[in-house]
């Protein structure tokens, strides 16, 4: 059988640096192929080669047996290679139909044929089994999940042969992710070849038929996903054994630092009560949109508090973000690029942003920043390097170092490991453990995450947020993933006490 896509010996050098050193990848029609690897392993370079954004120095690519050498992304799209990136490329102000047929709008007698446009868009959406998305809806009014489907609809409407999905579930809720898995399964039945890039190995096992692991620009392994061990794949990705992903030292709970009683924000959260002690990590599970981020934002003073009590140490009542920093509580945003960091400023500026003395001498700031760079193992050229040039994992370390540099007691971490590589994740887990066990005085951490193994591995207690209400916090020893999923979906009928 001729593979739908075959890449053989693909090599790409940037100056002295070898980004791809002879990658082989073969995908059959009707196959979902997971492409795995850490950040910097060469996944994005390989996909740029595939999408025509860059040309390989050596190697061969064939599409259905025909030589495939796209000159640019447009030609790649016309030949039938469609990319769906993490950051969706839709025009938010235009309608669903306009987005699906962007660049290939049907025209009749010099005028846009709206009827044909709507019907073709509806047909594409029906093929994806998502007729509930209206072709006239403005894209920015849709949920992220629906927007993603619109983008896939665009690929299908063009008649794509190879569909590349880059981290498609990273910003989806569990339910939306399930719907996406079903959609991927249908596309496979229709004979599409799908390349599925993900950091979630369980997800890769579930969705994909086969997998390929890249490391340092080379294909280091692969095979059918059925029967593959997650640990084996991780070892392939990392190149060394990750003994324990979630370290857990002995933690001693100290005094209560933060007491929240019946907190109510603007819309969400509707009701939240909990107590956080020194030396503990409190996890908050729940669906995206349940109000977890809003809870953290209200605590950090970023969103208004309408009712309820927040007692932080000796401080009581609502406060501005400035006050919260002074009182020793601050947030690491889930949205690193848009809210977390100023990407075109230096590491030093970002790190010291909340703790700037009235008169700054860059020379005096440098050793302090360097200390944090060393402690957090940030891979960079130095304190003056622009944060935007760092990898996601290293950016996140800078965002967390900002809180530590300021010496806060309570760290509010919103999805701290989203979209970062495995090695950085392990470092962040290790750091959180250190902060609550070895640091004197011990810190307190609230961590919001949609990745349940991570919550269960890192936290001491977990509370579930469901439709704006926070449930009781329970020790992780009494919890399983299934419990959390059930409670997040509101299946227990159990409401916050």
């Amino acid at each position, binding site marked *: 059988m001729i593979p739908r896509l075959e890449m053989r010996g693909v090599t790409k050098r940037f100056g002295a640096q070898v980004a791809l050193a002879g990658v082989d990848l073969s995908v059959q029609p009707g196959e979902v192929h997971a492409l795995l690897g850490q950040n910097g392993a060469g996944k994005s370079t390989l996909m740029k080669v595939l999408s025509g954004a860059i040309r390989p120095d050596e190697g061969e690519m064939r599409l259905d047996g025909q030589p495939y050498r796209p000159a640019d992304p447009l030609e790649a799209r016309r030949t039938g290679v469609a990319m769906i990136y993490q950051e969706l490329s839709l025009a938010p102000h235009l309608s669903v139909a306009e987005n699906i047929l962007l660049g290939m709008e049907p025209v009749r007698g010099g005028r846009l044929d709206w009827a044909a446009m709507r019907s073709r868009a509806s047909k594409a959406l029906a093929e994806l089994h998502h007729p509930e998305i209206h072709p006239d809806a403005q894209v920015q009014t849709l949920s992220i999940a629906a927007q993603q489907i619109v983008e896939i609809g665009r690929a299908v409407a063009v008649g794509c042969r190879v569909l590349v999905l880059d981290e498609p579930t990273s910003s989806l809720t569990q339910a939306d992710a399930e719907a996406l898995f079903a959609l991927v399964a249908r596309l496979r039945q229709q004979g599409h070849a799908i390349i599925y890039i993900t950091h979630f190995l369980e997800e890769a096992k579930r969705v994909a038929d086969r997998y390929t692991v890249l490391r340092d620009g080379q294909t280091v392994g692969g095979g059918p996903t059925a029967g593959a061990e997650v640990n084996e794949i991780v070892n392939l990705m990392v190149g060394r054994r990750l003994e324990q992903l979630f370290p857990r030292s002995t933690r001693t709970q100290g005094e209560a630092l933060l007491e929240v009683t019946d907190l109510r924000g603007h819309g969400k959260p509707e009701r939240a009560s909990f107590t956080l002690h020194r030396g503990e990590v409190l996890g908050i599970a729940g669906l995206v949109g349940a109000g977890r981020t809003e809870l953290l934002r209200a605590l*950090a003073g*970023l969103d208004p508090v309408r009712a309820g009590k927040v007692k932080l140490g000796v401080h009581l009542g609502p406060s*501005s*973000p*400035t*006050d*919260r*920093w*002074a009182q020793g509580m*601050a*947030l690491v*945003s889930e949205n690193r690029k*848009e*809210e*977390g*960091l*100023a*990407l*075109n*400023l*230096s590491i030093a*500026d*970002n790190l*010291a*942003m*909340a703790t*700037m*003395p*009235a*008169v*700054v*001498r*860059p020379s005096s700031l440098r050793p302090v920043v360097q200390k944090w760079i060393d402690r957090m193992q940030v891979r960079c*050229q*130095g304190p*003056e390097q*622009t944060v*935007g*040039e760092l990898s996601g994992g290293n950016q996140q370390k800078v965002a967390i170092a*900002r809180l530590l540099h300021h010496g806060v007691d309570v760290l509010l971490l919103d999805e701290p490991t989203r979209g970062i590589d495995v090695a950085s994740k392990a470092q962040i887990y290790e750091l959180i453990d250190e902060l609550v066990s070895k640091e004197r005085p011990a810190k307190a951490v609230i961590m919001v995450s949609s990745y349940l193994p991570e919550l269960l591995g890192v936290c001491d207690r977990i509370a579930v947020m469901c439709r704006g209400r926070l449930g009781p916090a329970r020790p992780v020893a009494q919890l399983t993933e299934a419990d959390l999923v059930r409670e997040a979906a509101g299946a227990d009928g159990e409401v916050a006490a």
Partner: protein
Amino acid sequence: MKLAPTLRRSLGALGGLVGMFVLFAILLYASKGLSFADPRNLETILRQTTIVAIAALGMTMVIVSGGIDLSVGAVIALATVVIAACMQAGFPPLAAALAGIGTGVGCGILNGALVTRLKVVPFIVTLGTMLVVRGVAKGLAHEQKIDAPLSWLNELLARLPSARQWMIFPPGVWLLFALAFGVGGLMLYTRFGRHIFAVGSNEQAARLCGISVPRVKFLVYLLGGLFAGLAGVMQFSRLTVGDPTGAMGLELDIIAAVVIGGGSLAGGEGSVLGCLIGALVMQVIRSGCSQMGWPNWVQEIVTGAIIVIAVALDRLRQRKAS
């Protein structure tokens, strides 16, 4: 050698300036046998640059914070009118100058308050205040130029008499240097200065870090107004009249100076050295063209082309660097 990114960027702009000087020097020498690098010519250029450069210092802060101020030209005109009116009414020159600067600060406060309170984008707010301020200036002056008695104010930017050649440059140019050092220091070495960059680079991140974004923006527009007022004093010094229709379109020269110097209208980027170089580049083109005897319309075409080319080159360099 590793350099701070801001310095690296400014050095790039500096390179452009040197290139421009050399080019013009060669052209002039070839065509007329004139020396462009003559110290006297240099002094003339500096004197002519001062007005735009002083206002550009304030504009640099506004643009780095992610804003824009279209009202500066009108504010400069209003300041000259206020100064002339005060002098005509018999106030001493110093009081008149302070009134002019105060006018600028008042306009800055108005801009700052509107931008932070109404949450309307600065482009629209300052487009509005530009018309309002220009109207006030015309009303105050009854749509005529206001004559004022000669005073030491007029010597601020005049060519130095031979008795005071030891000063090298007229006082206005020295004032520009002092202000440039002040603003440069403010932006690089103070918390407020770093906060301007933070707000311009990512407003949300700045808020997350506990920076009072409205306060920073308000102060930036206030300072922008202050520098427009100072530029108004210089403008008055050159014209010796209060002209409500003067400095028309000057805001665009001022913005161009900041942008040529590496300022980004998206905020978070820009430097004092860059904006001074930008202002100089614009003036060098002008004087170069007029020394070549080119008509006004050629000057305008050349200036426009240079703005686009300078900024395009800057972006190209940044893309290569990243």
